[in-house]
C-alpha cells in the first residue's frame, strides 16, 4: 500500500508545481472573466448543500477530507 501512495503523492506534487508554473504564464484579463464570475462557476456554488452531502458521506464511508476547509467532529463515524 505504501509505495503506490508515495507515487501518487509525488504525482500530485508535480502536478501542483506544474500548474503553479503555468499560472505565471496564464493571462486572462479582468474583462474576460465574465463567465468565471457566474455564480455556478464557483468551486462550491451551494456550500450548505455540499456540507449536508459531505456530512452524510463522511459518516457512511471510510474516507474523510480532501475538499479543503475543516469542521467539527461528530460521533457519527
Amino acid at each position: 500500500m505504501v509505495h503506490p501512495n508515495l507515487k501518487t503523492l509525488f504525482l500530485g506534487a508535480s502536478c501542483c508545481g506544474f500548474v503553479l508554473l503555468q499560472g505565471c504564464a496564464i493571462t486572462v484579463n479582468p474583462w474576460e472573466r465574465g463567465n468565471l464570475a457566474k455564480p455556478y462557476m464557483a468551486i462550491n456554488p451551494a456550500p450548505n448543500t455540499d456540507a449536508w452531502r459531505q456530512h452524510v458521506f463522511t459518516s457512511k464511508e471510510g474516507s474523510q477530507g480532501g475538499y479543503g476547509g475543516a469542521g467539527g467532529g461528530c460521533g457519527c463515524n
Partner: protein
Amino acid sequence: MVAQEVVVVATKPKNTLLALTTAALSLPGLTAQAAVPADKASANAQYGHYQESDNRMEVDVFHADAIVPVGEHLELTYSIDQDTYGGATPSFSGPQSLRALWVKWPIGLEHSFAIPSSVPDVISTASVISHLWGLPLRSFTDFTNASNTTGSTEGRNLEAGYAAVFNRTVQNGDKINQAFQQMPTETRNMPVLGLKYYLDNMTVGLSGGFSDEPDFQSNFGNINISREFNNKLTTLTGGYGLSSNHISRNTDHSAHANHEPAPGSEYPALDATSQFHNFNLGLNQVLTKNTLLQLNGTYTLQEGYLTNPYKAVYVRGEITPYEYYQHFVNAQPLNELTKLEVMGFDLFREVRPGQRNQWAFSSQINQYIPKFDAALHANYRYYFDDWGMDSHTFEVSWHQPLPAGFMVTPSVRYYSQSQADFFAPYFLAPRADGNYSSDFRLSAYGALSGGITVSKQFAKGVKLEAGFEYYTHQGNLKLGGGTDGYADYNSYMAHAGLKVDLSAVGGSSDGGHNLHKHHMHSAHPPAGVMFGHTLAQAGDVMVGYRYMNTEQGTGVMRNGSHGTTNRAIINDVIRLNPAKKLGLVAGQPCHPENKDSDCSISRQTNMSMEMHMLDFMYAPTDWLSLMVMPQLVNMTMDMTTLQADPDHGHAGKHVSNGIGDTYMAALVKVFDNDMHHVNVSIGMSAPSGSIEKTMDGVDSNSTTLQDYGMQLGSGTWDFKPSLTYTGQAGSWIWGAQASAVKRLQDANKQGYALGDVFQGTAWGGYNFNRWLSASLRGVYTSQGAIRGSTSRSAVSAPVDFSGNYGGQFWDVGFGLNAMVPEGSLAGHSLGVEWLQPVANQYNGYQLERDGALSVTWGYAF
C-alpha cells in the same frame, strides 16, 4: 450578480465590461476565500432528511446560518446545526451456520439485537470463557446437547460433541449474516462562530464551535489563510484545524428512554477522548476564461479512542474442542491450555488502532460551456490512510440555468474503497495486533449515487432550493470488482433550503423609504399574535423567525383552578387505570399483590417547550399575502416518582426534538384605510410533526409512546382561521383578534385528536417614537380535552390521560416592538412579548403554567 466596487489595479478597462470585470474579481467562488467581504448580510436555512432502506438509520438535519459584514474588512458568521437521528444500525456480523445455535440472535430479529453491556471491551484471556455472556451459545449445555447426538455425555464422546459444534461453525466461505441494533433517537447540536478578515490580497478566517450529543462532545477550532497572486488568477490557501473529542457510550439502562443523563454526567459506560489535527493546502487557478482548476490536499492525524463504541466483532478463537472440554469440565485454567489470547465463540467490542494518519487529495475542474450557458464540474479525490484503506471518488455535476431564475443541477457520484487491514465480517483467528472491526464502513465496497437539485432565484434576494439524491452501497460495485454483498443497502437524501441575500435586494439601503412605508402606519401586533399582519403591496416579501418558549416550571400541580396533593394524583391515576394499585406503605415501594402488575405512579415536575418557526410571506397581489411556517420543536419534561415499584419505575428526564407541524395561511385584507385595518386569515396546519416519539427513543410500532404533550405535532390536519383588526391614531395603536384551531379529523394515526382551541385577544399600545412601541394585551384561551386515546400510553402519570389536557386560561401580555424605518437596516422589525397567566381553569390534573415568551424578527422588502 452584483457589481461591487473593488480596489483593483485593472489594466485600463475601457469598455462596458467594467461591471463584469469588477464582479469577476470579487466573486466568492473564484477563490473559496473571496477577496472582499459581502456588503450586506445574508442568511440560510436548510432542512435535510436522510433515510436508509429497510427502515434503518434515519436522520433529520436542520441548519441555519447568517453572515454579517462589520465595517469594510470584517465578516462575522454564525451557524447552528441540529441533527436528530435514530434507527437500526449494524452491530456485528457472523457466519450464518452459527446462527442456528444462537439464542439471542434468532432469525427474524435482525433489527432488534442489543449488545449486552457485559460484552467485554478488551479481548483477553481473563475476559473470555469464564462466562459466555448468554451469547452466542445458549450455555455450556449446548455442547452437552450436541454431544448427546453422539450417544454419550462423557469423556471423548463429549469432546466429539464439541467438535461437531465447532466444525459446524468453522466453515470458511460461509454466508455472512448481519445483526442490527436499535439506536435510541438522539439529538446533536453544533453552533459555530467564525470571522473573516480581508486584507489587500489576503484573507484570514477563524472559526470555532462545539458539537454536543449525548455520547460525543467535540470542541473545535480552525484557522484558514488564503492569498491571491498573479492578478488574482491564482489563490493559495492553507489551514489548520483541531478537534478535541470526548466519547462515551449509552448503556442498556440509559439507552432505555429519551432519558438523558444529568448535565455533566454523560453516559457512564465509557470515558474516552480523541484529538484530530487537520492540515489543508489548496490552490485555485484560472486556466482560461472558461476554465477553473482547484487542487486540494489534506492531512489528518487522529489520535485517541477511534473505536466505534457500538460495534462488536465475532471472533472464533484458536482452541481445540478438547481444550474447551478441559477448561469447562476439568476447570483447567486457560493460560495452561493455550498461549493465544482469544478463544471460544464470542462477541467482543471492536478495537481500532489509537492512531490514524489520513491523506486526501482532490482536484476539480469547472468548465463553462458557452453553447448552453452551463457549467460542468468534475471532481476526483484520492484518499489513503495507514489503516490500509484507500479510496477513489469521482463526481460530476452539470449546472444549467433556465429562464425565470431557475437552475437545475443533476449530478452523479461514484465511490470505491478498499478495506482496512483489521476488517473482516467475522474473525476465525485472533489477530496479533489485537485490532478488530466488522464495521461495514471499513469494508471493501463501492457506492453509486445520482441526484438532482432545483433552485429558483426570486427577484428580491430570496432563493429556494430543493434536492434529492439516491445512493446505493454494494460490495460488488468496488473498483475492479468486489465480493459478496451481505452489507448492501440503499439510501436517499432530500433537502430543501432558503437563502436570503440582502446584497441582492438592490438599492434598499437608500431607496427603501417607499418600500417600507407600510410599517409606518400599520404597526405590527404584539409578538405573541400570529397571522396578525399582511404585506403592503404586490411583490413584497417578508422573511421572519419566530421563537416561542412555554414554561411550566413551578413544579406545582393543579386540579381545576385549585391546588392538589400527590395523594390525590395517585388516586386519580388509579381511578383512570384500575390496573394500578395503591402502595401499601406510604413512602415505601409498593407491593402489588400480583407480581406482574406495575404499581409505579409518577407525575411531571417541569415542562418546557421551545418552538423555532421560519416565517416566509409573499404577496402575489395587494390584497393577498401567502404564508408558510415550518417549525422546529424542542421539548423536555422532568418526572418524579410518586409511588415506586422496584420492578417498573419511571422517573427522570424526557426529551423530544424535531420538526413540528407546518402552518400555511392565506391572509386577505378585507378593510384597509389610514386608521383601521381588518384581515382574515385562512390557515391550515399540516401534520408534519411526529406523534410517535417513544419512551425508549426507538422507532418501533410497539414500544410505549411519550405522553400526548411531548409529541411534536397534532397528527391531524387542522383548520386555523383568524380575524384580526388593528387600528392607529396618533401615537396610539390598538387591535383585536379572534382565532381558532379546528381539528379536521376525528382521530390521528394513534387514535386520538387534540382538543379544538378558541382564542380571543385585544391589545392597546403606544408608539414612543418612530421605532419603538409598547403594548399591553389580554388573552382568553379555551382548549378542549383530548378526544380518544392511544393504546401505547404508559398510563402511569397524569400526562398519560387525555382528560388532563386543555382548559380555560386568562393571560396578560407585556410587549415591546421595534422597527427600523430607514437606513441600512430598514425593513427589519423585532418584537418581544411575555405572557403572564392570571387565571386558569385546568381540565383534570395539570402542571401550573408559568408563562410564555415570544420573540419575532422579520425583514420585509
